[in-house]
Each structure stands twice: as C-alpha cells, then as structure tokens.
C-alpha cells in the first residue's frame, strides 16, 4: 500500500507543470553549460566543463536552486487534501497514517530525485553536441555522476524535502512553507558568510546541510589536474556530514508523522474566534428578510458614458488593483524577502579583508546585482497574477460584460505592477539605509538611491513586465504565459553573458551602462542609458497597446475574433497613442543609432575581431623593427573636461639607440578607438604611408638616422568623447576626475599595439601566426628590450590646461600654475629620468600636503572622501623612511595620491603619482580589529613602484614581473612590518599564502618564480612569501644590500636590462651557507611545497618545576611540475619551532607570549623534539608563522596537551 500511494503521488505530480518547467530549465542550464560559449556555470578558467569538480559543484548548486520546487512538491503532497476538501474521503479509507504520510512523502521525493536526473543526462548530452568546444571538455566519467547523484544530490534533496515536509505538516500552509524556504536560504547564506573563521572549519563542514563546505574544503588547494579528474574521498567531514543530515531527515519525517492528525482537524482556534465575532456582529440585527424600504422599486440612476465616467473608472480601477496587490498575503512576504535579500547581498559586499564604508555608491551595485533576478521573477510572476486575476477568481464574466474599455484592465494592472516593483525597490533601499545607520554611517543620500537605483531598475522591470502582460493576455493559460516568459528571460540571461546579440537597440530592455561615481555622479552616462530606456519604453507602450487591443474578454480564448475587433479598436485614441509611441521609438532609436554607430563606430564582436586581424595583417610585419627611442618629450595638453575633449600638441626628441641606421619612422597610436592622430611632422622626412583608419603613419627620412643621431617629431592628437557608446563607456575624460594615461594621449614609435588577439584558437581561425612565447631567461638577445615601450625618458616637460575650477595634475615638478580667461594652466617638468608611463589628471579636489624628508607628500581627493587621507600620508612618510635609507633616494620633490572615479577599481603607480580609485581605498574602512590596513598596504606598494620599476626595470622576458610586483610587494611588507611590528605582519603572509595556493589551483602550467609570466598570483603572492623567507634567512639587510647593488648597476641604464638571474645572483652573493644557497634554488628556480605538521605535543612538569615538552613533528617536501604533479624530495632544513603561551595569529597574541622560537633541523618523516622550559607552553608549532608554502597551514600549531590526557 505504501508503494502504491507513493506511485500514485509520483504520477500525480508528473501532471504538475512545475515539474516539467523545472526539469526543462535545469536541463537547458546544464546542457548549454557544456557547449555554449559564455554560459559556464562556474568561472574557473582551465577547468573542464565536465570535470569531476564541476560535476560536484553543479550538483550542489542545483540542489540549492531546487529548494523552491521540491518544497512546493512535498508541501503540496501534505496540504493538498485539506485544501481541496478531499481529505475526509481519503482518510475514511482503510489506509494507515504511516502509509499515507510516508507514501506521500516518498512519491514527492521520488519526483525531485527524478528531476535531478536531468543533471547527468543534460551534461552528458551537452558534451556530445557538435558545436561544443573539445578543448573545454575532458572525458565523461560515469563515476563522477554516480558520486554527485547518490552522495551529493540525493542526500541534499532528502534533507530539504524532509525539512519542508515537516514544516508543511506543522503549518498546513503553502505560504508559510515558502516563507520557511526563504528564511532557510537566507540563514544558510548568511551563516556561510559569517562562519569563515578557520577554527570553525571542521564544525561547519559537518554541520552545513548540503556539504558544500565539506566538498570545498576537501579540494581547496587541489591543482587543476586534480580538480579535473579526481573526486574527494568519501570519508571524514564529508561522510559525517551525510550521515548527520540523513539522520536529521529521518527525524523530520518522524516529526511530520507524529504531528500529522489523521482525524479531521476541525476549526483552528483562530477560525473559531473569527466565527464567533462574526456571529456576534450579526446577532442584534434581527431578521432582515422582512425589512422593506419605502423607496423599493424606485428607478435606478442610469449610466452616463463619457469622460467623467472614464476618469472615475480609471481612478477606481487603479485604486482597486493597488488594494488587491497590497492586501494580498504574498506582498508582505515579498517585501520581507526584498529586505532579507538586500541584507544578505550587503553582508558579503566587501572583498575578503577589505571592509569599506557603506557609501551609497558602493551599496547600489551590490543590491542591484543581488536583487535583479528576484525582481525579474517578481515582475513576471505578478504580471501573470494580475492579468489572470479576474479569471482565477471567476469574476471575469461579471467584469468583462461591463461596458469598460480594455485599457481599464491594461493600464491599472500595469500601474499596480509598477507599485509592486517600486515598493520592493524601496524596501531594498530602506534595508540598505538601515545597514548604513547600523554601521554608524549617517551620510544618507536619498537622491542617489532614487536616481541611481529605484528609477532605472523599476523602469527596466516595467519593460519586462510589459512583455509579460502582453504574453499573458495572449496566452491560453497562465502557466503557458509564465513558461513563455521563462524562456524569454532565459534567452535574455544567456545573451547577457554570451552576447549573441550585442547591440542595445536590438536587445529588448538592455541599455548602455550607467557607471556611477561620487566624484562624477551619473555624469553624461545617464543620457545614453535613458535615451535607450525611452526607446524601449516607447516599444513597451506599443506592446501594452497591443495587449489593450487584444485583451481577452469573457470566455473567448481564440485570437482570431479578437484580431477582428482589434482592427476596429485601433481607430481613435489608441491609434494616436500607438503612432506617438512608434514615433518616439523611431526618434530615440535614431538618436541612439547616431551615437552608437555613427559617432562611435559601433562594431560587433566579430567586426572588432576582424579589425584587429586586419591591423595585424597590415602592420604586424613591422613588429620588432628597430626604432629610435624617446629621449625628451614636451607636451601641451588642452583639456576641456566639460566638453570632454583633450587636444595634445607634442614634440619628441628621438635618438637612435640601436646599433644600425634607421630610415623609416613608424608613428602609431597604442589604442585603436577614441583617440585620433590629427597631425604629424618629422623634420627631414616625408610621409610614405598614412593609414587613417588605423592611425598608422610611416615617415621616410631623407637621410637615415645613424646610431646616436637625433630627430625631432611633432604631432597633434585629439580625443573627444561625444554622446554615448553601446557599452563600456569611455571613462577617461570626465567632468570631474579625468584620468588620462599616455596610451590615451600620445603616439608611440614603432608598432606597439596591446590589442592583439591572444587566443590561439581565434588566431588560427584568421590565419594569424602563433604569438611568439615570452623569451626564455637564457635568451640574452632579449635583454636589449625593457618591459615597457621606449626606455627611459631623460626630460619631460608637460603643460596641462583645464577648466578654471579644477586642479590640473601631471608628472614632474610644478613650475607654474596660473588661472586666466577661465582656464587654469600648470606646467610640470621632470627632475629625473622616467619611463613612459604617466597620468594627467584634473578634478575639483580637496588637497592635503605634508613635507617629509624634503618631499611634498600630497593627497588630492573628493572632499566627501576624507576618511583615509591621513592614513595615506602616514604610509607615504613611512615608505620614504624605509625606502630611502635601504634602496636609495627618491627621484622627485613630490609624491601625489590622486583620486579618480571608481569606474576603474584599482590603484596604479605612475611617475611620482598614484592614481587611486575612489572604490579602491578612499572609501576603505580600517578601524575594525579583524581587517588589514589595506589602504596603507596599497599606498606603500605603489610608492615602492617609484623604485621598482621607476628606477630599475627588468628585460622583457620570463621573470620580468619580479622586477615590478615581487619587489614592490616585498618593499611594502617591510614598511608594514616597520609600521605595525612583526607580530602583525603574519596575517598578511597568511593572506598571501592563501592567494597563492588559491591561484595555482587554476593554473595549467605553473612556472617557478624566476620564470613567471603574467601570473599575478605568483609575482605578487608567491613573490611576497619567497622574499619574506629569504629576508629571514639571509637577513633583511642582506636582501636590501643585494637590491642596492642591483640599482647601482642598472638604475636608469639602457640595454642590457637585468634578468631575474642577475637578481638571484645578487641574493646568492649574500647567502653564506650551502643550505641558504639551496633554499634560493628552491624558492626561485623550483616550485617547492612543504607539508609541516605538529602532532599532539605534550608538556610534563618535572620535579624541579620546569616542563618537559615533547613535540612530534611530521614533515615532507615536494617539487611540483608545471601541471601540478608533485614528487616528494628529502627534506633536511633548519626550520623554526616555537612554544607559546597564546596561539600565534590570534588577536590576543603578543611578543611576550613567545616562550621559545628557534630553528631546529627538520627532516622528512616523523620526528620528536624535546625541550625543557620554565613556563608551561600552551601551544607548540613548527613554522608557526607560516613562512613556508604549506598547503595545510592550519596544522602547524597545536595546543599542548596535559600529561594525563596525552595519548
């Protein structure tokens, strides 16, 4: 009987459209994730789409997403009979309660389990599609799917099905169950956020219901090869997790069984009360049936059809629809959900370790992105509910027979939907404001919330709603309408990432982006966004008009009779509205087309690709052609920030630093869009080529330049941002906070073009030769080129003029600064050689200066972003204090930190300058105990770039970024150590280790540090670890001496430029022992990993009161190949062993907690170290401060056990 009931339930649910819709969506998602470009479910480059890890991850992800559907299935199974009133019939049959309750559950659970089968099927089929990219797929392994289905998916589904089944049984309410799902999800995600403390790892891995954490922990530092093909052992936390939650599920079912009352429930207390009240109210009125009124039979007023009646009608319908929406029980649920979702989105808003002030600017994108999908669902769901309300309530025959025009449905319903959307958005806003206030942030900017969030988002959602209303008014059933809309949204979402259709004028509801900034507001970007919004809005009006014309009245579902009527209805006002909307559509469309296509030469992705190919085919042959170098440059930049225009006139003094004569000068622009080369003249040369399309010119000298000859070149470029683009707006010239780099201003000599197509696949497709690999370290010919164009410039003279109310800023010593005729002009001249990497900036800044070591330290900032200005000045002063004595003098008399709008979210070092994004430090908040001083960290790092590579840069070959990022990061750590003490530097090292291990997990070919390419996780993160350990071994002085020696040889020198080999040689000169020499090899020339762990240390008190401490240590050392294959190698090094009274790395830890810290010989395998101490140690550890690269850094330190309890 149990089985029969389960089977019946299963078959009954099979007829539920939700089952099929869910299965279809999931199938589509997983299927296309295997073969469609840009539709990956995760974003881990290099991981096969059907890898073991991806299979597990998909399984986890889908079981989470499935929660709403499965809650609906199981709740339906238990609530249905009461709602339909069929319950008594069923319960009067001879089935038992057990058969009934558990049978129903099993049937519903079986449906969810069956739905989840689309995962393996969809992904296997997906990999077989002919358009799938074989390079992104590995072999299909059936074991992966078995593991994912039986060990991940089925237990997860059981868990949430059982929980919601129990909840539905207790509450007997669908709405309560949905609320529970939302709260459950909310709690789940916020706890995930909250419980990242490593101490809790093991507990969370077991206690978290879906084993996401257990799986994540198991594979945390796995390499790509491992993630692609290996499954985590089903043991430990993972196994206990599954057992625990299966147990919980059984318990939930037992509760559901116990709670379920088989006999009729009767009326609830509340219902009884209600009934009584109603009876009381009615009682004293007597029997009304005999009542007669004198005016009975009086003629009723007759209708008057006309404008007043229509106005009354409109007002009434709107009011009525609003009322219906607001009073519906779903509405408060929705608002609560909106609040939760906002709080949830904002809880995880800051990147790890980098808390920010909750500025309106920083919150808006978070809530917008976090809530977009939910809003879409709300819009589409409500459109269905509103359009079908009359029919669902079976009042359609009453209402539809009334003499009301169709717009009396369409318009009020649309407005009611707008009300819903705006209310939800306002809820988001109020939650965001509550968060701001709760963090003590009182600078509430309501206007920004409205203009930047509520208005654009509600408008966009109404665009979607208009489609939904039309679709619903045409579709024969509400579910069909929803289905169609789901497909529509799926298409839109697919297209958002894959951009099959890219032009905003062809993508319904898409608008050019409107990047936001406190400095610059919504700037001119809002014009583009709202022009295209109006364009789609006009179309939405047309759609609603069609809905009006074709509105379904009565029981008529066929389209044809409605079409016949529609033609007649079009006459008069609807026709006029339609014509006006179409006109607006055409006008805004034409204007947007003019901006996007005419002014900005819109290209599709393919056209842009073809242009890049075309450029390379025409000019690629000139790559590597010997060209003279820039020795002196004079620039005169006329910037008009309000016109968004910059005209640059310049003069280059060029010198032939090569060994051969040069006949042709190639003058080109490094970027291909936005900048125009309007004029070029080369003394003593004639133009032989002028390619205006690609801004490429060739000049032939009458007399070729001999080595060391010079020649003069003058030019003019123009940048003029007019109107708006389709996407990625030009954010260089701004009304406030302009940031122009040399790439955006001036021509270069030779063929330097960073926009070359990199992807080997695409290059093959267009018949382009393979890009040459980075030159090997051993290739000495490569040392003739430095890793940036043009080498060192000896003299740099730049005049920048801007609007009178702005501060012009450019590299060099400020010579003059005058304001005349509404223009402010300043001239800057360099006092030392510099590389051709500079920024000119202009804005309405507040400034703060500090003189330190004879240098003018300055911060130019938006007056509202004052929080970190002093911190930056402190960090600059500390930098000078460390860098000058240790590396040598700073080359300028000024150092400027200049804020720019957060359209770009980084800080970058230019000559004498850091351009600091408003979103990368100016709004950072570091008064919290558990965060790093990230602003100082960035400031000192960027300042260090004034030496590396400001004074010495590596050759363009393997390892070049060591000269930039590794050295800057090392310098930064040393300054931070000075500022905060060595105890506090440890969390930074841990962070570097975490980032390095996390980065290499996705690597396909990991080089050792000496040969690093563009991998920032190696150059920054591993580099920092390596340099720190090196400074512990050969001494900080040794490292700095080596660096000074390097500077002495290479500072501002031309070719040959240094290699990492030279740097390593300098370090080796400081290494005194063979052990240190070997360490340098391991650190720089190999990929070396350690596994150091302490196993159950104990302390026993001796007769003399001192303590015998025993520390068992297990140690291993590995060398890894590029693809992550590790080979164990014997370890015999002296490594720090420490005894402490507090745990190193914890908040309470101080220098005085160190009982002993000394280097001990550690070898491979297990060994036991014994010490005698005065104090009883609480913690013991090997490499307790994590100097070594160790995949499991948590087991380096353990608490010391008492003698009795030791095993």
């Amino acid at each position: 009987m149990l089985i029969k009931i389960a089977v019946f339930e299963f078959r009954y649910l099979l007829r539920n459209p939700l089952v099929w819709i869910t299965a279809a969506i999931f199938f589509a998602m997983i299927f296309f994730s295997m073969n469609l470009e840009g539709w990956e479910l995760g974003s881990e480059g290099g991981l096969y789409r059907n890898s073991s890890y991806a299979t597990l991850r998909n399984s986890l992800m889908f079981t989470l997403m499935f929660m709403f559907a499965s809650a609906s299935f199981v709740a339906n199974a238990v609530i249905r009979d009461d709602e339909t009133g069929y319950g008594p019939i069923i319960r009067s049959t001879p089935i038992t309660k057990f058969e009934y309750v558990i049978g129903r559950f099993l049937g519903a659970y079986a449906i969810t389990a069956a739905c989840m089968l689309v995962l393996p099927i969809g992904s296997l089929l997906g990999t077989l599609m002919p358009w799938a990219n074989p390079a992104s797929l590995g072999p299909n392994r059936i074991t992966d799917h078995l593991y994912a289905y039986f060990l991940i998916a089925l237990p997860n589904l059981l868990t949430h099905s059982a929980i919601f089944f129990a909840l539905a049984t207790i509450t007997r309410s669908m709405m309560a169950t949905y609320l529970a799902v939302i709260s459950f999800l909310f709690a789940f995600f916020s706890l995930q956020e909250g419980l990242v403390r490593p101490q809790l790892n093991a507990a969370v891995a077991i206690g978290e219901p879906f084993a996401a954490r257990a799986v994540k922990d198991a594979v945390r530092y796995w390499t790509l090869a491992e993630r692609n093909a290996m499954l985590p052992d089903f043991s430990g936390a993972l196994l206990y997790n599954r057992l625990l939650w299966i147990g919980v599920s059984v318990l939930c079912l037992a509760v559901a069984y116990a709670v379920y009352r088989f006999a009729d429930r009767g009326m609830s207390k509340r219902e009884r009360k209600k009934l009584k009240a109603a009876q009381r109210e009615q009682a004293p009125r007597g029997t009304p049936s005999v009542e007669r009124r004198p005016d009975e039979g009086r003629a009723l007023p007759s209708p008057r059809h006309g404008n007043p009646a229509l106005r009354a009608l409109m007002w009434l319908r709107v009011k009525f629809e609003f009322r219906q929406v607001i009073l519906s029980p779903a509405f408060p649920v929705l608002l609560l959900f909106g609040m939760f979702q906002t709080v949830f989105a904002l809880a995880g808003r800051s990147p790890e370790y980098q808390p920010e002030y909750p500025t309106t600017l920083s919150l808006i994108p978070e809530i917008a992105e976090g809530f977009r999908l939910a809003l879409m669902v709300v819009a589409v769901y409500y459109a269905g509910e509103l359009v079908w309300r009359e029919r669902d309530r079976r009042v359609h025959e009453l209402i539809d027979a009334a003499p009301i025009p169709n717009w009396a449905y369409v318009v009020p319903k649309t407005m009611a939907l707008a009300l819903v959307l705006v209310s939800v958005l306002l809820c988001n806003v109020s939650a965001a404001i509550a968060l701001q206030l709760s963090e003590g942030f009182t600078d509430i900017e309501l206007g920004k919330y409205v203009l930047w969030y509520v208005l654009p988002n509600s408008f966009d959602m109404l665009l979607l709603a208009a489609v939904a209303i039309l679709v619903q008014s045409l579709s024969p059933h509400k579910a069909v309408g929803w289905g169609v809309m789901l497909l529509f949204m799926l298409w839109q979402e697919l297209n958002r990432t894959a951009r099959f259709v890219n032009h905003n004028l062809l993508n319904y509801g898409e608008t050019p982006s409107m990047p936001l900034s406190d400095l610059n507001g919504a700037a001119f970007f809002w014009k583009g966004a709202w022009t295209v919004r109006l364009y789609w809005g006009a179309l939405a009006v047309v759609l609603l008009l069609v809905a009006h014309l074709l509105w379904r009245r009565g029981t008529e579902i066929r389209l044809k009779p409605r079409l016949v009527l529609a033609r007649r209805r079009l006459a008069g006002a609807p026709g006029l509205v339609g014509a006006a909307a179409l006109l607006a559509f055409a006008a805004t469309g034409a204007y947007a087309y003019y901006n996007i296509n005419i002014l900005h030469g819109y290209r599709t992705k393919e056209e842009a690709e073809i242009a890049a190919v075309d450029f390379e085919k025409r000019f690629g042959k000139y790559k590597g052609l010997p060209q003279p170098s820039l020795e002196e440059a004079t620039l005169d930049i006329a910037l008009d920030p309000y016109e968004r225009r910059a005209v640059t006139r310049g003069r280059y003094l060029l010198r032939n630093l090569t060994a051969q004569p040069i006949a042709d000068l190639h003058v080109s622009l490094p970027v291909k869009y936005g900048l125009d080369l309007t004029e070029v003249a080369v003394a003593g040369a004639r133009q032989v080529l002028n390619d205006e399309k690609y801004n490429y010119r060739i000049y032939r000298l009458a007399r070729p330049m001999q080595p060391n000859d010079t020649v003069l070149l003058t030019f003019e470029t123009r940048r003029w941002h007019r109107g708006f683009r389709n996407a990625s707006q030009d954010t260089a010239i701004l009304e406030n906070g302009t940031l122009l780099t040399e790439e955006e201003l001036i021509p270069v000599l030779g063929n330097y073009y960073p926009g070359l197509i990199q992807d080997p696949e695409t290059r093959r497709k267009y018949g382009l030769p393979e890009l040459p690999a980075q030159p090997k370290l051993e290739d000495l010919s490569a040392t003739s080129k430095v890793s940036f164009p043009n080498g060192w410039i000896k003299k740099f003279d730049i005049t920048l003029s801007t609007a009178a109310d702005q501060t012009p800023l450019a590299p060099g010593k400020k010579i003059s600064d005058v304001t005349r005729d509404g223009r402010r002009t300043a001239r800057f001249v360099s006092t030392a050689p510099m590389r051709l990497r500079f920024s000119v900036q202009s804005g309405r800044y507040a400034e703060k200066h500090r003189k330190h070591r004879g240098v003018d330290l300055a911060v130019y900032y938006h007056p509202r972003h004052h929080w970190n200005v002093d911190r930056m000045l402190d960090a600059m002063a500390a930098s000078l204090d460390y860098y000058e004595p240790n590396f040598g003098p700073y080359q300028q008399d000024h150092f400027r930190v200049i804020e720019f709008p957060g359209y770009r979210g980084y800080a970058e070092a230019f000559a004498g300058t850091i351009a600091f994004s408003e979103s990368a430090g100016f709004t950072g908040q570091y008064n919290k105990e558990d965060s790093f001083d990230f602003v100082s960290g960035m400031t000192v790092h960027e300042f260090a770039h004034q030496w590396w590579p400001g004074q010495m840069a590596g050759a363009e070959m393997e390892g070049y970024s060591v000269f930039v990022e590794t050295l800057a990061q090392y310098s930064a750590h040393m300054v931070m150590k000075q500022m905060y003490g060595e105890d506090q530097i440890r969390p930074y090292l841990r962070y570097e280790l975490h980032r390095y291990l996390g980065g290499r997990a996705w690597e396909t070919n990991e080089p050792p540090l000496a040969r690093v390419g563009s991998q920032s996780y190696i150059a920054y993160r591993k580099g920092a670890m390596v340099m720190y350990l090196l400074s512990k071994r050969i001494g900080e002085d040794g490292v700095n001496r080596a660096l000074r020696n390097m500077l002495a040889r290479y500072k501002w020198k031309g070719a040959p430029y240094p290699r990492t080999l030279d740097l390593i040689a300098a370090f080796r000169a400081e290494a005194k022992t063979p052990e240190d020499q070997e360490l340098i090899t391991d650190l720089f020339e190999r990929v070396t990993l350690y596994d150091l762990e302490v196993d159950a240390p104990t302390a026993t008190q001796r007769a003399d009161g001192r303590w015998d401490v025993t520390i068992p240590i297990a140690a291993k050392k590995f060398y890894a190949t590029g693809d992550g294959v590790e080979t164990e190698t014997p370890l015999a090094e002296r490594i720090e062993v420490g005894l402490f009274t507090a745990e190193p790395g914890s908040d309470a830890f101080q220098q005085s907690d160190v009982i002993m810290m000394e280097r001990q010989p550690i070898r491979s395998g297990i060994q036991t170290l014994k010490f005698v101490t005065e104090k009883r140690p609480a913690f013991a550890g090997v490499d307790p401060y994590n100097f070594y690269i160790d995949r499991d850094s948590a087991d380096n330190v353990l608490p010391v056990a008492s003698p009795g309890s030791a095993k």
Partner: protein
Amino acid sequence: MLNLEKVTHVYPNGTRALDDVTLSIPKGMYGLLGPNGAGKSTLMRAIATLQTPTSGTIRFGDPTGSHPAIDVIAEPERLRRTLGYLPQDFGVYPRISAQDMLDHMAVLKGIASKADRKATVETLLHQVNLWSVRKKMLAGFSGGMRQRFGIAQALIGNPGLIIVDEPTAGLDPEERNRFLNLLAEIGENVVVILSTHIVEDVSDLCHRMAVLTDGRVQVEGSPQELIRATRGRIWMKVVDRAELPDVRERYEVLSTRLSAGRTVVHVLSDRDPGDGFTAADADLEDVYFSTLAATRAQSRRAA
C-alpha cells in the same frame, strides 16, 4: 429587439455547442429551457459578448427606433453599455465587501457620480435583501447570498438587455419568489432572457420561451401556445413501481412522479393508448419533456 440569426458555435475541441440558432426575442421575459449541456450557457455568453460565435449574427435594438441596432459581434462595447448579465457560475474577489464590490461594479457600468452610485448600491442591496450584510466580505457569502449579489449587479444602471443564466439555483423558495417578482417588474420594458432548467420559472413568468437541446432550438413560442399544441397527446396513469419497466418498454414515457406511494406516469402518444391511460391536463413540463423525448427519438434515428 434581440435577433439571432444562424448562430453556430463550435469549440476548438469539436463540440458543436450551438447549431444554427435563429431566434427573435421581443421585450419582456423570455425563457430559455434546456437540460444541462444543451448549449444554454454558450448562447447566453454569446449574447453577452463573452464568446464570439463561430458564425451567425446577433443584433440588438429596435429597427424602428432612433438608434441603429447593435451588431453584438462587431461592436460588443455598445451592447455592454446596456447589458445586465448574471453568469451561471461566478466567483468574487477576496478581501472586499458586498457594498464595495457593488459600488465597484457600478463604476464599471458607467455610474460615475458618487450620489448616483450610492443610490444605486443602496436600492439594490435592499432589493436583493443584502442590506444587513453589506459590510461582510463577499468571499464569506453563502451560495444563495452570492447569487443575490449577482442579481443586484446585473440590475445596475437600468440595462436594456438582461441575461440571467440559471438565476434561481441555490435560492430558497422565498428568495426565488422575490427574485422572480423583481424580474417580472423590470421585464415589462426590457428584454430579459432567463435561462434555466426549471420549468416552473418559465411557466410562471415568461411570455415567450424556447427549448434548446443539443445546441438547437427545438420549439419556440409562448408557453400557452406550446401547451395548446401538446394538448391531446399527453396521457397519464397511476401504476405500481413493478409495472414501470413494462410501461417504459411500451410507451414513450415523459415523466414519472411518486404520489402516495404509487407512480404517476405521463406518456406521449398521438392516440389514446387505452390500457387504463387517461388524458392528462398538459402543462409546460409536459411540453418540455415531450420536446426532449422528440429530440432523443430524432438522435436515435440519426444514430
């Protein structure tokens, strides 16, 4: 006033709900009788602009009057301005009281001014005897109360055409009387179509009537005419229950009714069947059942 010409409606699933219906309905009460599934509701909806028939025309209005007749299919909006419709089966919005909903309906029907609406709502609530419960939520109404509300809304704004589909279902006898009286009063000046399967409703009230089965009009005329036409063809006899199968076998039985433990049988026969049958005093029920019998016979022949 209301003219239907060759109205045919075929549902997408192939059901021929209306088959070539041609009717001319004058002012006054008009009864439309038929069993369940005869196509009554489809016809009502077609007239009420809620269902476009597959073919045929429906016109409303006095061709001699100043206004041109309304082509109901082409200009549903015009008909709706003078239409009062009570569907056979309808629901209500949640969270709204009878009074508010009636007020709402009044606005929908074009009663724009507040005063007019107030008068309308109050009068109608009294007329249908819902005044005392006007503030209760409609959703909590019993079937009969809901039906009365439906009647009230159909009367808003003095419609020229009132269509009531099975209006007396769920009403108790007193309410039914009240309602029929109300209809009769209004029906003097306007067209009222009363669709029902209860013969008494029609016989009490209607000046003209039609019997609809299988989507076709079987007979049409005034009840008196129809009864007259049947006179002499209806015979009755009181039999025991045991004899009933035999009687059914031998005669076209129209109806059977229990009376004091025995069964009164009406049969249809053009001649005196003898066998103890006596001529019955034919009433509308006999007309109705004889029509149904004729249809059955027809379809048997066709099959």
